[in-house]
Structure formats: C-alpha cells, structure tokens
C-alpha cells in the first residue's frame, strides 16, 4: 500500500495489541507509589477540519492544527518547546516526525529533515524522540498507541525507561489521527503546574 516517495519501511505496521495506564489524583498517587510522581500538566486536542478540502494549512506540509494544539498545551502546562526534555511524536510515517518537530517548535519550519538527520532527536540529542521506538518500530494498534506513548513518557520521568534520558523533567506526547485531521498533545512533568 506504500506510495512514492515513501517506501515500505517509511510506513508503520498495522498491529494487534492493547495497553493500559492508571491516572490518579495526587493524594491517592502518593499513597500508592514510592516512585517519582508524574503530573499531567496540560494538554489539548484540536480538530479544525475532517474533509481534505477544508485542510487548515497553507499546503499539505503546513500542519496548522498541530500548532493550535501545541500552543494551547504549552500554555496550559506553562512550558515552551525549549523546556521539553524528551518526547513521543506520532511517526505513523517517516515524514510525520519531520513535520511534527517543526510544528511543535523544536526547530524552524522547513528544517525538520535536517534537524532529524543531524541527530537532534537521538538519545543524547537536543530532544530525544520516540525512545521506545515509536509507531515505526512498535507497530500501531490505534486505540493503544497513545497509551504506549504516555507510558513511555511516565517511565522517562520516573527514571526507569530502557533508553533513559538522564534527568528528564518535562515530557511531551503527540498523537494524531485519521488522514491528519486531529492532533492531541499531553505534557507531563515531575512537578505540578504552580
């Protein structure tokens, strides 16, 4: 089903699977675990269109709806792109991550390819991304993917991820759906929003 310029390995596999996480109020969380607490600081889910004719950007590589969601999530979490220590982005296709790092504000618009190529998203880079492998490596059981991403961000902030980003304090999760009609962002932190 792949189409040029994408090749088979630019496309995530469609996968069977399930995942589960627990969200608790701070008081209960303190009773239940000795691990560092991971607060859900903020988030947003933006839908500006569904039919492709109403695409919200200037062109198909301009993801205005992602920017809207990101701006709102950053505002709610009281952080900016430079504060993100580790992230999960929705790499359903290789091109997706290239555009997502631009629209999330990790680099300038149009420079996503170079940003990724230069290793900024690798472990040890400026913003390590998809430290558990992302959709391209883990596969994509639709409803479970956002939970896998959230779980990895939690583990990073608790210091127990397999590919650990040392000292990570703020983490961001980005999840999109359909033919790019919706963007969801969740921002986590070791501290609650003051």
């Amino acid at each position, binding site marked *: 089903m792949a189409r040029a310029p994408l090749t088979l390995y630019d496309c995530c596999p469609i996968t069977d699977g399930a995942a*589960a996480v*627990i969200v608790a109020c*701070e008081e209960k969380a303190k009773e239940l675990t000795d691990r560092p607490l991971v607060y859900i600081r903020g988030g947003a889910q933006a839908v500006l269109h569904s039919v492709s004719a109403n695409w919200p950007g200037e062109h198909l590589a301009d993801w205005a709806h992602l920017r809207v969601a990101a701006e709102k999530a950053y505002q709610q979490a009281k952080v900016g792109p430079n504060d993100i220590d580790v992230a999960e982005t929705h790499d359903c296709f290789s091109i997706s991550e290239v555009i997502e790092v631009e629209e999330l504000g990790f680099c300038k618009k149009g420079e996503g390819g170079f940003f990724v190529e230069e290793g900024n998203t690798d472990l040890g880079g400026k913003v390590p991304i998809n430290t558990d492998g992302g959709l391209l490596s883990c596969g994509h059981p639709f409803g479970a993917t956002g939970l896998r991403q959230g779980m990895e961000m939690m583990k990073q902030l608790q210091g127990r991820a397999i590919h650990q980003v040392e000292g990570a304090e703020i983490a961001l999760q980005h999840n999109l759906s359909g033919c790019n009609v919706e963007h969801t962002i969740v921002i986590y932190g070791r501290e609650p929003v003051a």
Partner: protein
Amino acid sequence: MATRSACLIAGGMSKWGVREASLVDMTQEAAKACLDDIPALNHKDIDGLLYATSYAGRCSFQTNTAPVMAERMGLRPTSICARVDVLCAGGSAGILLAKGLVESGMADIVMVAGGEKLYTPQRWEVFYSELASIDHDWDAPNGLGLPPPFFALVATEHMKQYGTGTAYVV
C-alpha cells in the same frame, strides 16, 4: 485553575503484533501488566474506566466495549465507564479525559485502557476496514481513503516546499 492534580502512575502493555488472540485476551494481558506495575493498587479501588478502541465492532465482534472490558478485567467502576473513539489518538484522548475527571473530583483512580484486533474477519480486510475512518460523502469517493497515499502527498509537498530530500524522509 484546578485544585486537584492528576498523575500518571502505572502502565502496561500486551504483546503487540499479528496476534492469535481476541481483543478481550489482549486487554486482559495489558491490564495485568498495568496492575503488576503498581502492586499497592487494589483493582477494586479503580473507580473509572475509559476504553479506547475504534475498530471494535467492525473487526472484532464487540461493541459496548467499556462495560465488557470492565467485567473481564475484574473492575467495577462507579464514576465513569465509557468507550473513547478517536482512531489513532484514542489513547491520548483517554488520558486527557481522565485528567479532567480526576481534577474535577468526579473520579479518583481511572484506568485508561485501549486496544485493537485488526486482522479479522479475514487478514486482507485490514486495509478495507481502514476506509471506515473517513467521510464517506466526500473524501472516500475521491480515493483519499487510506493514510499511506495521503502521507506520500504530504512528503512530496514538504520536498517541494523546503527541499527536503528522500534521505531525510527515509
């Protein structure tokens, strides 16, 4: 400003792949892994369940998924028990909804679970099923039904606009 804060405190996954297992089987595996991740939590204290799935009903013969999964995971939610369907983003939507429920005081401990069983009724139907996710009056008749061709257009546009080469896309 919220007076309560919500925390993500545990997580677990089933084995992912092309599985010879039902959606219930895989959800039970994930829930077990999740509860094993936080031994101090008694499952009886979980008062909410959000279940993220999109193709249950189409691929696995199971609708009304949240109550079914609650029973099969041994949960008896008393605050919320509902399905979330936002296709690929159902899981993160569930986390945001759980945050709102917990911060508002409507729930204290919410399990957000989700899963898909896709390679059914027959394996080849997985691609056919994906057509269920788009607007049937508009994009579907124009052939924009599946993500791979759409994202190929996106990649082509990024290369045209910004000079990104295939080396950066691959």
